[in-house]
């Protein structure tokens, strides 16, 4: 539905992140860096090898890419700091392959839930587009941990996780109420 708005006169949201958006995207970047660091810790643990290690490494690199993409959206406002609370909650669970899977799945679900709540507050449409394309992959990565090494349907579809997104009100002028020609 990429052309869906073309025929409808409607208010046009801003493309660039607003000031409130930037604060929200700082949070998003923080959880992405945390996820990357946890995957790197797991990959370096020596508990994974071969295709399994390649998958862990790939998932971690995805989160690194997301942190960089958010960096591109918010520029100088980027803090490039991981969420220490999220990191410390899970880093101790990477001791065995089984507990690591559970921890990494929980991290994926937490990051996806956080990004979803952030997306629901954003005004800048560029960030909405990027975050949407990140969230669907994070949901997939969470589900993979429910399908390997064997299918556990309940686990694969489990999306329960606490969002770490704060509620940050937008300034009144954040939304540009202009009308485009039909």
């Amino acid at each position, binding site marked *: *539905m*990429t*052309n*869906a*708005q*073309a*025929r*409808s006169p*409607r*208010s046009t*949201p801003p493309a660039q992140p607003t000031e409130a958006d930037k604060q929200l995207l700082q949070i998003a970047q923080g959880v992405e860096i945390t996820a990357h660091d946890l995957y790197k810790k797991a990959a370096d643990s020596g508990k994974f090898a*071969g*295709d*399994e290690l*390649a*998958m862990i490494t*790939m*998932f971690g*690199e*995805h989160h690194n*890419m997301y942190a960089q993409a958010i960096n591109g959206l918010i520029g100088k406002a980027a803090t490039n700091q991981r969420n220490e609370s999220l990191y410390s909650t899970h880093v101790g669970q990477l001791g065995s392959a089984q507990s690591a899977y559970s921890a990494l799945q929980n991290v994926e679900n937490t990051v*996806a839930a956080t990004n*979803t*709540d952030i*997306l*629901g*507050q*954003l*005004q800048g*449409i560029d960030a*909405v*587009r*990027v975050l*949407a*394309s*990140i*969230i*669907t*992959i994070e*949901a*997939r*990565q*969470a*589900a*993979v941990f*429910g*399908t*390997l090494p064997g*299918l556990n*349907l309940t686990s*694969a*579809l489990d*999306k329960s996780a606490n969002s770490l997104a704060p509620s940050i009100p937008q300034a009144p002028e954040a939304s540009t109420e202009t009308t485009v020609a039909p």
Partner: protein
Amino acid sequence: MNNITRRDALRVSGLTVFGATFLAACGKQSGVQQSDNISSEGEATPLAELPEGVVNDVVLLRTAASLEYNAIDTYTAALDGGLLTGDYAKLTDAVKRFRDDHIAHASALNGLIVALGGKEHTCANERIHRIYIQPALELITASDNPDLAKDVVALAHALENVATQTYQGVVTSLSAPNLRADAIRIAQDEARHAVVLAQVLNGGYASVGPTTNEATGKPNIASVPAPYGPLATIPLTIGAPSAEGLKTSLSLETPSLNSLIYDYVSC
């Protein structure tokens, strides 16, 4: 240096005058009446025009609801038609769960639609069914298809990807931020369904990320097909193989302007 004789010059100018006179005789100067029906007899029947469709949040949500019914109907056809056979019969519980999820999505979407002042939509997207699902089911259920159950799973996987991409794509068109969050929440459910089905079709750690079929050069089914959620055509290869051993390839796309569920569309 070119030498043009007086005879050459007269010949060229004579041809120019003749040409201009001929063209003028064929044109308006010769008294031909202008008409919209030059080569027809009688008046053409006026075309019935579609009502003007306005794309807004309600229309986008109604379209999403229609896709949920496409999925519900397809899963129901697989279950009621006994299409999950052999090893794939073990997927029956998963398929029932997926169908229940889609029913819940449709209900949630219709709740949002009514809250926005729109009319709920409780049937499948007719165009999506006609151009994608019906032809696919005909290929799958053909008597000479040796991979009936596997192809049903492949169709379900493709439809889950269509749904995921639709929600992901629509978030930038929805005007209300809270609706964007609702849409991407449903997208995540569809993406998880797709992963379960992808692992059934092409399982194992090596198949999680993108890979290529060495024989055909085409991408294999992947649980995580790209670093970012793709918005692209979705390939579906199904049906009885040809004499060369090739199955039929279809390309599925998310709904466009000609398949939206506008306010004037009803079940």
